[in-house]
């Protein structure tokens, strides 16, 4: 019986039938690694998934530092998104920074009974008087949709009354089946109301957007540092340490770099359609990943000087870290890992682990879609189901004035054919035969797979961490990086290796068993017989 069968076998037939389609043994199956993903969670299964609100406000909007984000709902949703995701933001001249604040309408029973629009308007008035923001965002939570508060009308009202930008996001927690719906909702509104409005002067033709980079633990800064060293101009980052003004100018770049495909591919595609800016899937996680990415970008811009500079920077950065990399390789080589993260890192971190000789035995996503597992080529075959149908899908047309192409159409086509542009191959292709890919891994499966596969490290989130560690397996968080980081780029690779090395070699692991559990209780004889 395969490991997957041993796990599945313990389910009732109904659950078995469902979960079977979410567990794939790589290349050992008849349907080409096809997986079920982005479908509703089984009630009571103990999923690690969050909600639409978390995907919208927590993930995509949260890092935008100068938009004052009011969560319209009871207090919890706003409270839990307060400082808990480590999207870092620096204070900058002339740009507000509200990252240390949590704003809510703190809905009470009368607001649910009589509607909360009045309180929301009052909250906006108060926010204006106390904070004078240039942009306000309103994020709705579960009850808002149910009681019928029209937050979009309130946003319009606020724009007129206060002469600001005000955008509403209908990201009620019950929409879709996971955080993923929230990404889509955030993408739509940013596309409709922000992107394309800027007219900042772009200095360099080597201008890029970094999409789907939330600057957790400073990841975005490390990525930017490398790009700037080579000579790129970073127009916008979606949305780590970003300002509204940055985002407004995204359409002016000549290339979009997509780090997290799941959360931002909507915007990447729409910017391309509307403004002619192509997108490239990149991976700044891992040394080899970063090098390959930098070379791919250089290939797109196709400039001799830039290509030369790219190689110089790669060589220089490598030289600075090579001793550390070699050292940590001696500590980590041969170890195994299981990864269970949101919608992107489970793939990217395999590259980084590989740099240190760590192999992956299982990887899964909470809320990725089939394209993150199987690659974008399966997109035409993905069926929308009833649970996600109500998530608005918007379409855009080429902008008559702002549409621009950096490369000739034919060259672009060629790069597309080479899968350098507009393509993401997904996770499955890079996993070894016989390893496991699991979608929406629940608590039961986590415990069972860990027992059967016995990885040295389990990379997951806070809810899993102590479960794994109690059973004696090191667990490092790949959402919060256990308050460390950055993990991206060249320097990040060293930080990452340092962190897992100290985890594996922590002396306390050797004390789990008390000495009296193995030592004889008494020496001598007991009742005439030898004790123990």
């Amino acid at each position: 019986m395969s490991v997957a069968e041993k796990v599945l076998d313990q389910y009732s037939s109904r659950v078995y039938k469902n979960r079977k389609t979410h567990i794939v043994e790589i290349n050992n199956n008849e349907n080409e690694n096809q997986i079920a993903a982005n479908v509703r969670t089984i009630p009571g299964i103990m999923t690690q998934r969050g909600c639409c609100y978390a995907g919208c406000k927590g993930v995509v909007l949260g890092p935008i530092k100068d938009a004052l984000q009011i969560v319209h709902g009871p207090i919890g949703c706003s409270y839990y998104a307060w400082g808990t995701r480590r999207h870092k933001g620096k204070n900058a001249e002339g740009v507000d920074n509200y990252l240390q604040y949590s704003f809510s309408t703190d809905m009470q029973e009368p607001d649910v009974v009589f509607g909360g629009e009045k309180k929301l308007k009052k909250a906006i008035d108060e926010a204006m008087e106390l904070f004078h923001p240039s942009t306000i965002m309103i994020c709705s939570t579960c009850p808002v949709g149910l009681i019928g508060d029209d937050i979009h009308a309130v946003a319009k009202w606020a724009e007129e009354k206060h002469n600001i930008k005000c955008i509403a996001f209908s990201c009620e927690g019950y929409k879709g089946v996971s955080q993923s719906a929230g990404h889509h909702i955030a993408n739509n509104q940013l596309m409709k109301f922000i992107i394309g409005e800027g007219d900042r002067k772009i200095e360099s033709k080597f201008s890029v957007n970094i999409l789907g980079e939330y600057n957790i633990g400073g990841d975005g800064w490390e990525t930017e540092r490398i790009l700037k060293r080579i000579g790129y101009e970073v127009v916008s980052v979606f949305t780590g340490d970003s300002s509204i003004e940055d985002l407004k100018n995204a359409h002016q770049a000549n290339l979009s770099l997509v780090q997290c495909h799941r959360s931002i591919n909507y915007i990447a595609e729409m910017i391309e359609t509307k403004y002619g800016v192509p997108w490239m899937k990149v991976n700044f996680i891992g040394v080899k990943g970063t090098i390959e990415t930098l070379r791919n970008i250089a290939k797109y811009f196709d400039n001799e000087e830039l290509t030369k500079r790219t190689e110089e920077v790669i060589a220089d950065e490598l030289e600075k870290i090579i001793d550390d990399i070699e050292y940590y390789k001696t500590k980590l080589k041969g170890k195994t890992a299981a990864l269970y993260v949101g919608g992107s890192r489970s793939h990217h971190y395999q590259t980084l682990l590989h740099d240190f000789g760590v192999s992956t035995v299982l990887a899964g996503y909470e809320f990725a879609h089939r394209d993150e597992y199987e690659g974008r080529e399966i997109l035409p075959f993905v069926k929308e189901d009833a649970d996600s149908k109500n998530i608005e899908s918007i379409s855009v047309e080429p902008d008559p004035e702002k549409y621009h192409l950096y490369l000739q159409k034919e060259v672009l086509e060629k790069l597309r054919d080479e899968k350098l542009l507009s393509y993401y191959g997904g996770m499955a292709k890079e996993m070894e035969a016989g390893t496991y890919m699991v979608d929406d891994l629940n608590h039961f499966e986590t415990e069972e797979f860990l027992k059967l596969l016995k990885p040295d490290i389990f990379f997951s989130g806070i809810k899993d961490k102590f479960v794994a560690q109690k059973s004696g397996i090191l667990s490092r968080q790949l959402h919060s990086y256990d308050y460390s980081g950055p993990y991206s780029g060249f320097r990040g690779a060293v930080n990452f290796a340092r962190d897992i090395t100290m985890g594996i070699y922590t002396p306390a692991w050797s004390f789990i068993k008390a000495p009296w559990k193995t030592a004889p209780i008494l020496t001598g004889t007991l009742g005439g017989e030898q004790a123990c």
Partner: protein
Amino acid sequence: MLDYTKKESYDRTALRVNPAKTCQPVGAMYAALGVHECLPHSHGSQGCCAFHRMFLTRHFKDPAMASSSSFTEGASVFGGGSNLKTAAKNIFDIYNPRIIAVHTTCLSETIGDDLNSFIQDIDIPEGKFMVHTNTPSYKGSHITGFSNMVDGFIKYLSVSTGKKNGKVTLIPGFTNPGDMREMKRLASTMGVSYTMLPDTSGVMDSPMTGKFEMYPKGGTTVEEIIELGDSNLTLALGKFASELGAQTLKKKCGVPCKTLGLPIGIEKTDEYIMELQAYSQQEVPYELEEERGQLVDVLIDIHPYTYNKKVAIFGDPDTVLGMTQFVLEMGMIPKYIVTGTPGDDFEKEAAELFTKFGVDGCIARAAGDLYQLHQWIKQEGVDLLIGGTHGKHIARAEDIPFVRAGFPIIDRYIHSYMPLVGYKGAMRLAELITNAIMDRQDRDCKEEDFEMVM
């Protein structure tokens, strides 16, 4: 740090900024984790459950298990009955708890799901239990949710057989496992047999054994909850978190009850001991007299560092009131005390404390937030800030020594193992306070004033 917080007072009625509370269900989840072999279940969309598990895990650095009904948009419109039914089946099948404790969210409350009838229709396996409470997030706070869940257990399970069992029911309030252990130790030392509900010791502070236990050793057992109906007395520790359950047990099973403050500081611990003594009719053992005497000794020793120091305290109402009284006992001035949890009793009881200890110009606010507290501090500063992690920005912005005490503390370790209650807890709190003040003196004083002995 917090650059936009204005000094000038401003009367907000709609915008909540940097809350000093969170919502009901997490309190219910915590209470349910204090029942042995219980799986808390969140009847709503799954984001709440994820957030609440995260909150508890970050505070305790331990697993916090719970399941969710995982509402979709369809269920939100047509009701979550079938979600709960499916969930119950899966939970009993896969996770095999003895009892499922269901709480609700603003979603299932707004749509009006009738949990009573849902649960009646569910096929619960022999010997297993399923209870529920309603925890609408738009009312009260996490403390209300805790109180409601305790109430739910009693409503569903406790019965009176008509024969008293000689035990005291202890409802320990929204406190750490370290506190619950200390309250139990004091009761044992007083020779009182008791049942504590809920009891997260052994659950949220479980040891490392190399084996993950879905249902750790700790927690009140279902049988113990059933037998609460036969107890002779209930002591509800903390009015906000514990009184409701005690009153329900009185109404349902005729168990008399007394509400006390959380036993933080000297007098509140004295009251707890005296109540235990009144019940046991036994001498207070020397052991406790010695502890109390040590605490008083310490307070006299440290008074030069604490006397007349101004303190701001925020957090949950029962805890804040307890700590307020203790700092007053230390000769400090609780300049501002804030809870996010609504309720008139908080301000009333605080005012009584101010009068009793003869301090002027102190402000107490229920349903307040940290933005407002920060404004007050800007208007007139304090020497010390006491509260959970969310105060660290104010402490840094205003350069105030900061003692972490209460919920949640997500940026420090070990705290949840250590009590704040009892004489021992008071001594620990006194140490934390004095160390914070003295560390600051060491950091800030002129080099020539740097003292070897303090």
